[in-house]
Every structure is written in C-alpha cells, then in structure tokens.
C-alpha cells in the first residue's frame, strides 16, 4: 500500500502550453483511484508522470511522503499495465510474467513459485508455456495483470487496460480487477475514458478535461452532484440533459414556454436571470393526468428490456433523453406529456458552466446538519 501525493503537478512539452495544469490530489493507501476524461485530456500523461516515464515540468510527486520527482521508474516500486499489454511476443507467458524479476534479486526458484501462484490466481496455469499470439484477448489481458501482480509492488498503474476487449469481457474483467485489487490491498491508479468503468470501479475518481481537474470525489457524489456542465454531461449514461433557461419571478422558463417553479431558497442563490438547467434522464417521467405536464414529440425510442430510453425534441435544436423503468410501447412521432421531478434540478452558470445550485447536494448538506 502506498500513498501518492501530487502537488501542483504540471506538464508541458513545448514550454508554452501546459497539457496538465497544476494537479493537486492525494491518493490514499489502498485506494482504487480512477482518472477519467475524454481522449487528449492528459490522464495518460499524468499516469506516465507518476510511473516516471514522463518527466515532471513543475510541481512535486511524493510517494509515501518522499519526493519522487527524479526517481527512475524502477526505483518507484510500482507496476504498470499498458493499454496494448506490452507483452513480449517472443517470450512465453511464464517468461513474460517473470521478465525482469532477476533485477529485484529474486531467486529462480522464488520466481517460479510466484509465477505459478499468480497464474493460478488468474486462471493462466494451462497457458504458461504458450506465446502471447496463441492467447485470446482476455487471456493476454490476464497475462498483463499477472505481470503487474507478480512484482508484489504496493502501487499499480493501469492505462486503459480494458479498451481492447469486447463489451462482455470488459464487464467481466472490470469486476475481476476490482476483486484482485481488494484481495491484494494495493493502491491502484486506473486510467480510462469510459465513465462506466470509472463509476463501477472507483473508490474515488478524478474527472479531467483539457489538462484541468473538473472534479474529484466518490462516484455517487460526482453523479448526484456534478461540479459543472462538463462533468454532468460526461458522467452518467445517458448523460444529464441540459438546456438554457430564464428566470422570471418564481419560475424557470426553458424553450420559451416550459416552466417549473423554483423555491425561494433556490432563488436566493441565483445572481443572474439566465442559467443552464440540468435534469438526469431518470428524473423525467410521463405526466399523470392530474399533474402539470409538457407536451413533446418523441424522436426515438430504445427499449433495453429493463428500461426504456425515450429521445424527444426539446427546444429548437436540443434533444433530451428520458429513462423509464420497464418496457414502454411509445412510438416515435407520438406526442407525450412529460413531467420533470423538481426535487432533482441542477442549475449551472451559463457562462462558466460551474454549478450554482444542486438539489441533491442541498439535501445532503441538510442531512449532515440534522445528524
């Protein structure tokens, strides 16, 4: 287990533009920490800086409280799993797993014992004499994992390890990696562009965009309480619905005529009369007869078995998605009346995208005060 601290960590390749801008975060021992963001956001660069494969332009990296900026990768006592697995094609699975162990002064006998142990753990025992090209994608992935585990390093870095697998296998490996990390009790830093992986695996996650930290937090906190419109639209599948809205008196008006009341408490926080309104798909429902509703035209319906995704036109060039439980038989083109749960509204500044108000966080704060 290992504590990783980043203090103002900055990376620039040309000395002018920063690809990572002063990252501050502390990753606790034994934590499963996920770095998530769209491609090109700097998440892999950050991981490679922690590994020592990229130099640090400014700031400090500390491992277990000791400055590690200038340490060579092998002196940082960590293991890494690469996106393409980086297996040696000319070596057998066994040779791949034990590659480089002689540097750590581990005897041949001990190497073999360790290799057999991890192979048993990862179900590779029957494949130890095979070459990587004779393995399936999932088995190669396991060899890459085994190579990280066999070093017994207290910190493991993973760079999009599941992105080359098909969807079904990915879901399986997700759970396996998480279980493995728990079993070994190691600190894990995991890079992905897939928000589902981040949500399902992380103890805590960091959302990066354009080299800036957007939000750091536990998955559910991030989901319920996105810090800005970027996080709101990145985390969650389908993402949070967003639309510009105007405030007049005590109602919020979107698209010229759709209205929802706002509370005095909400109003007190609003400085402007223009905001971006955010609603999660699961908080939109079909309006009951007694309820006030809003008439919209259905553009597309996706029935997934346990739930139904309804895409409808909202405003001139905006489409929203609603998510309902069960199997709905609404047809595309139909007019439906929808209602928005006004206990779950989020309001963002239209200019900066920053969160102004989020009902979920207010409720959480209230709970804390009362308890």
């Amino acid at each position: 287990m290992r504590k990783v601290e980043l203090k103002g960590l900055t990376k620039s390749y040309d000395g002018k533009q920063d690809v990572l801008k002063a990252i501050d975060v502390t990753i606790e021992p034994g934590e499963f920490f996920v770095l998530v963001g769209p491609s090109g956001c700097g998440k892999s660069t950050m991981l490679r800086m922690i590994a020592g494969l990229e130099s640090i332009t400014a700031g400090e990296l500390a491992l277990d409280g000791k400055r590690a900026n200038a340490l060579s990768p092998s002196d940082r006592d960590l293991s890494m799993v690469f996106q393409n697995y980086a297996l040696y094609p000319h070596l057998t699975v066994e040779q791949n797993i034990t590659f480089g162990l002689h540097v750590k002064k581990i005897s041949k006998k001990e190497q073999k014992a360790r290799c057999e142990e991890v192979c048993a753990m990862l179900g590779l025992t029957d494949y130890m004499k095979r070459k990587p090209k004779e393995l399936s994608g999932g088995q190669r992935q396991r060899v890459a994992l085994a190579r990280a585990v066999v070093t017994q390093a207290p910190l493991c870095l993973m760079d999009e390890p599941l992105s080359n697998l098909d969807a079904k296998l990915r879901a399986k490996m997700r759970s396996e990696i998480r279980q493995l990390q728990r079993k070994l009790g190691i600190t894990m830093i995991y890079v992905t562009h897939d928000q589902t992986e981040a949500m399902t695996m992380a103890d805590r996650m960091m959302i990066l965009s354009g080299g800036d930290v957007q939000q750091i937090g536990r998955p559910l906190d991030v989901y319920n309480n996105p810090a800005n419109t970027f996080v709101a639209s990145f985390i969650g599948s389908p993402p949070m619905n967003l639309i510009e809205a105007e405030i007049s008196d005590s109602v919020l008006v979107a698209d010229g005529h759709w209205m929802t009341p706002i509370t005095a408490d909400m109003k007190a926080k609003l400085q402007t009369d223009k905001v971006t309104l955010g609603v999660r798909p699961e908080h939109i429902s079909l309006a009951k007869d007694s309820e006030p509703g809003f008439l919209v035209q259905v553009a597309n319906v996706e029935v997934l078995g346990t739930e139904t995704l309804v895409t409808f036109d909202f405003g001139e060039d905006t489409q929203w998605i609603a998510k309902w439980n069960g199997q709905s038989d609404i047809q595309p083109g139909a007019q439906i009346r929808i209602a928005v749960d006004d206990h779950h509204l989020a309001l963002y500044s239209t200019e900066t995208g920053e969160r102004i108000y989020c009902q979920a966080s207010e409720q959480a704060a209230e709970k804390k005060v009362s308890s």
Partner: protein
Amino acid sequence: MTVIRQEATSGSTGDWHLERKRAWSNWMTGMMFLLPSLILFGVFLFYPMVRTVYLSLFLTDSQGVPVVFVGWENFVNLFQSTSFQLSAKATALFVLYTVPAGIVLATALAILANQKLRGIGLFRTMFSATMGMSVAASSVIWMFLFNPSIGLFNRILAALNIPGVQWLLDPQYALLSVSVATIWMNTGFAFLILLGGLQNIDQSLYESARIAGVSESYKLRKITLPMLSPTLFFVTTVSLINAFQTFGQIDLLTRGGPMESTNVIVYSIYKDAFINYNVGSASAQAVLLFVAVLIVTVLQFKIGERKVHYQ
C-alpha cells in the same frame, strides 16, 4: 453462407453455368493484373534463365551460338580447373568477409541512430547516404583511398612509420580491401532497413522494461534483437544474395586481379563470356552460382527462420 451453398447445389444447371462463367471471369481478371509482371519477368528473367541452362550444355562459337551439344562437359571442365576453384574460394571468402561484418556494423549504427537526440536526423542521413551513391562513384573514392602513393591509408601508415601496403595490388590484401569497400557501400541499405525495423518496435515494451529496471544490455538481448529478428533475417538474405552477385566494384578496383585473388564467380563469368567468348563455360558457371545462392538461401530459411520471431 449455408443458405447460399444450399441454393447453389440444389439449383438448376443454369446456376452451375453462371458459376462457371463467374469463376472464369475472375480468373481472367486476376491474369490481367498479373500480366505486366509476367511479361517483364518472362522477358528479362525466365527466358534468360532457361537460355543459360540450355547454353551451359553446349560448346559455342565466338558469337555465342551453340555449336556442339556436350552435355555435362562444361561442368566437368569447371570442376577440374584450378582457376574456377580459386574463383569459388574467392567468392566464399568475399561473402564471409562482407555479410556478417556489414550486418553487425549496420545494426550497431541503426541502434545508435535510433536514439531520440537533437540532430539525429543528420546522422541518419549520413549513415544511409551510401545507399544513394552509385557503385562507380564509390569505387573511385575507394580507389583514391587505396592509392599506394597518395591514398589516405598509406599516409596514415607512413605517419605511424609503418611501410605502405599495395592495397589493391597485393594478392594478400586485395580481396580484403575490396571487401572493406563493399561493406561501406552496402551499409547504407542495411542500416536504413534495420532502422525502420527498430522504429517498428512497440515503445511500450521498453517502457515496461524500464519499470522492471533491467539493464541496457539485457534490453538489447531480450527485446531489441528478438524483435528485430525478422528484419535482420530479411537483410541477411538480401545481403547474401547481393554479395554473391557483386561485380561493379571488382571490375573498377581490381579487375579480378592480382593473380585472380579477387576473381569472384560473377567476374569470372563476365571474363569468360565477354573477353574469352566462351559462352558455354560462362553459362555453366552462372548455373552453378545460381545453385549455390539457392542452396545458401534455402539453408538460411531452414535454419535461420527458427530463430526469427514474427509478431
């Protein structure tokens, strides 16, 4: 797939005809694409080869017209002639001197030039430059370097108070001298191909090794060389064939001399055919050279390929 096949087999004879027609037109389309290279290979390669084998079985007049069928006599004469034995020995030595040394040198240069350093492009250009030079121009340069009175090598020897050497005129040194020049000429090609091979190696393999903390020589032995082996194999094969066929620099530097010490088989073929007008014997030597190259290449594939790791 199965549905289509069922229809095809249970269908009427009309279907069968259609299929035949389609197969025929497919074959024709394929042949059309092959035709240009078939014609070129036929005219410049297959026909001369067959003609050479044919001529090797005849005594010819001075125009190269076959006169008397003599069967294996040309070959028998060759095996009995000391001149041919010397030629074969010179060729074997020449291949032995140039190929391994050239490949080791090119590999070393390629590994050096594969570093990420400022201005490395300059070195890459320099190391590969010999590829762009004609054999004639290179030979002239080396002729100056080897010149006994004004050449650089003898001046260096003189500066060190060592008596000069007749590089190209001394039978002891001539083949070695031509070999050195040849290594220099061939390095550019091998270097360029090997550098390409090095740059194709996945960087994450080295990154993984850096995290493991293995030494540079371990990386070279366990990653670079195995991963480069397909390229090395290709370069070795091409270099071997090339070395067997060397002609230009020998013609320009030594003309097969002194005392036939650099009279490699290709040069001997040339002399027999175009100076002695003994086309039959020249053809027989060409056939033997072809067989020798074939055997060496087949052996190389049989033995060498086992050590090659294709991805």
